[in-house]
């Protein structure tokens, strides 16, 4: 079984995001970039499937500027077999990403596409679902456990209020949640091997996809700062405030 793992290059999760002075977006100059943590979990899951003998080949894909090849190399150093960089200098929205991924799926014919439930930059949480719709495949989103047996996958999903386990038919899309696994570090020997793994370069036009934006950013603003708290004199006062001021009781 071939597995496709889309990986996105995003601002590192440790970076304290700053909004650009003109409100046009988030400051990206001189900011550390890394693989989207949810995609890292997806790469790890794919490698575990390969180690378990379920998957045979892992293809990592990234869409974006030339630097995205760093993200692919990281996936290759973790254990993916080869990479595809779809190069574009434009900002690509989830629908265009899903269309490009559909084009790659049509070419590569994987049985499983596993990717992060969302990217930590825009938090759109759309690509996996859109891809499933475009392909007409079943989907298991927010996965905290994935078991693949024959033509079926059992996916435990993290839903509001608990866990939901569903059985879906392969081929399928799985999007990963935080508790699915803990991604490994790239080992020194694997880092050196990654250099020799094939990395193809493509363009959105190779898949006939127009990446022109459909959304317009009107303004980007920082969230309002937290207001100062108040000290209460007694439990009774606290309960009163929760009831009558905060309205949470």
């Amino acid at each position, binding site marked *: 079984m071939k597995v496709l793992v889309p990986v996105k290059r995003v601002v590192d999760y440790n970076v304290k995001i700053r909004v650009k002075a003109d409100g046009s977006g988030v400051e990206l100059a001189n900011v550390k970039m890394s693989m989207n943590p949810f995609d890292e979990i997806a790469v790890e899951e794919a490698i575990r499937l390969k180690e378990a003998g379920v998957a045979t080949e892992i293809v990592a894909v990234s869409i974006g500027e030339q630097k995205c*090849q*760093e993200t692919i*190399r*990281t996936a290759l*150093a973790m254990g993916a077999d080869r990479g595809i960089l779809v190069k574009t200098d434009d900002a690509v929205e989830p629908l265009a990403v899903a269309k490009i991924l559909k084009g790659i799926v049509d070419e590569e014919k994987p049985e499983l596409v596993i990717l992060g439930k969302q990217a930590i930059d825009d938090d759109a949480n759309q690509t996996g679902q859109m891809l499933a719709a475009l392909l007409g495949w079943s989907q298991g989103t927010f996965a905290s456990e994935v078991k693949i047996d024959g033509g079926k996958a059992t996916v435990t999903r993290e839903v509001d209020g608990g866990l939901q386990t569903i059985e879906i038919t392969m081929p399928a899309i799985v999007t990963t949640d935080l508790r699915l696994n803990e991604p490994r*570090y*790239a*080992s*020194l*020997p*694997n*880092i*050196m091997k*990654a*250099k020799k793994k094939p990395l193809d370069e493509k363009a959105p036009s190779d898949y006939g996809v127009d990446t022109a934006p459909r959304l317009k950013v009107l303004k980007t603003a920082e969230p309002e700062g937290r207001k100062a708290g108040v000290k209460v004199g007694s439990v009774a006062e606290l309960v009163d405030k929760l009831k009558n001021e905060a309205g949470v009781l």
Partner: protein
Amino acid sequence: MDFRFSDEQRMLVETVRGFIASELAPLEDEIEQTGALRPELARAVFEKSKALGLYGMNIPEEHGGGGLSALDTMLCEEQFGHTTDILIRRAFGNVYEVLLACQGPQVDRWLKPAVSGERVCSIAFTEPGAGSDAAGIRTRARRENGKWILSGMKHFISDGAFSDFFVVTAITDPDKGHRGISMFLVDKGTKGFTVGRDQPMMGIRGTSHLELHFDDVELTDEHLLGVEGQGLKLALSVLGRVRLAQVAARSVGKATKILNMTVDYANDRHQFGQSLGDFQMVQQMLADSAIEINAARTALWECADQIDSGLDPRAKISMLKVQASETLGRVVDRSMQIFGGMGFSKDLPIERYYRDARIYRIFDGASEIHRGVVAKAMLKGGKSVYDPWAA
């Protein structure tokens, strides 16, 4: 000249940095409080690091090491500086390149087990009467019936409690001065070899510093490392890279880690209605630390690059030893000042970093010794130390 990192370098640093932050840093407080790393934890970090290929990365691949260049070694060593000495030793191994002088049966007996982490090695040069003056040792190895008989004592032998064998310097020909010194590989447990007390230190808690006593220890030619009488020459030829790695690069790493914490603190801590970072005198301290760290790191890369080009930049290594260790001293002192009372308190690690930093200006040749090396090189026609275009 290319200061851009390759994908391999970037990923290697990310792995090492991530491993230190998540696997090693959480163990530091306990080591500081108890003065020791529990053996089961030592084993665990060794095994995890080993599985990632991070043990003995500085040693060539044909001997089972990671085969890193000097520059790549420095990139990793800078990250090692983010944690404590004992954790670096257990997780990444201080595998001394002097062991590459092993020949014949010595390779399987000492070199390979040291690189694999199966056996741990310490360097035993220092004596009460011979610190920076490595030729001033009194430990003797006399020739008797085709054997070597070792007698004398060493002290401050770092990691001596954990180590399985030692590289020991001894006088083999008292009439030849520094040309009469040889190196021996001495296993713990050899008859007549006893370890003395662990000498308590101001900082780097968790690492033992032992006295070693040699009372007519019988050795064979197999224990002689390198050529008889060329012990100091061999040491000088390989210890430069060790010095650059374990002192200069780690100093840069420590200073960087401390400055990272200080910048965050300067942003978060408010006094007189503004953050500490809004005070110009604090800004000056932050900027000075950044300027010094940046200068030391860039010089470190250049020096490592010279080693990789096959040069022997001894005077530059001495410059870096001074520059990086003294940068660390100034950075941690400023940070203590910015953290104020909290920095002095044992509730934060700043006071520990302050104590740990002090030895970097002393061990592996005090600053004064290395300044002497630099000045002598300059005066003897080596203006290239500071002027690459000098005639």
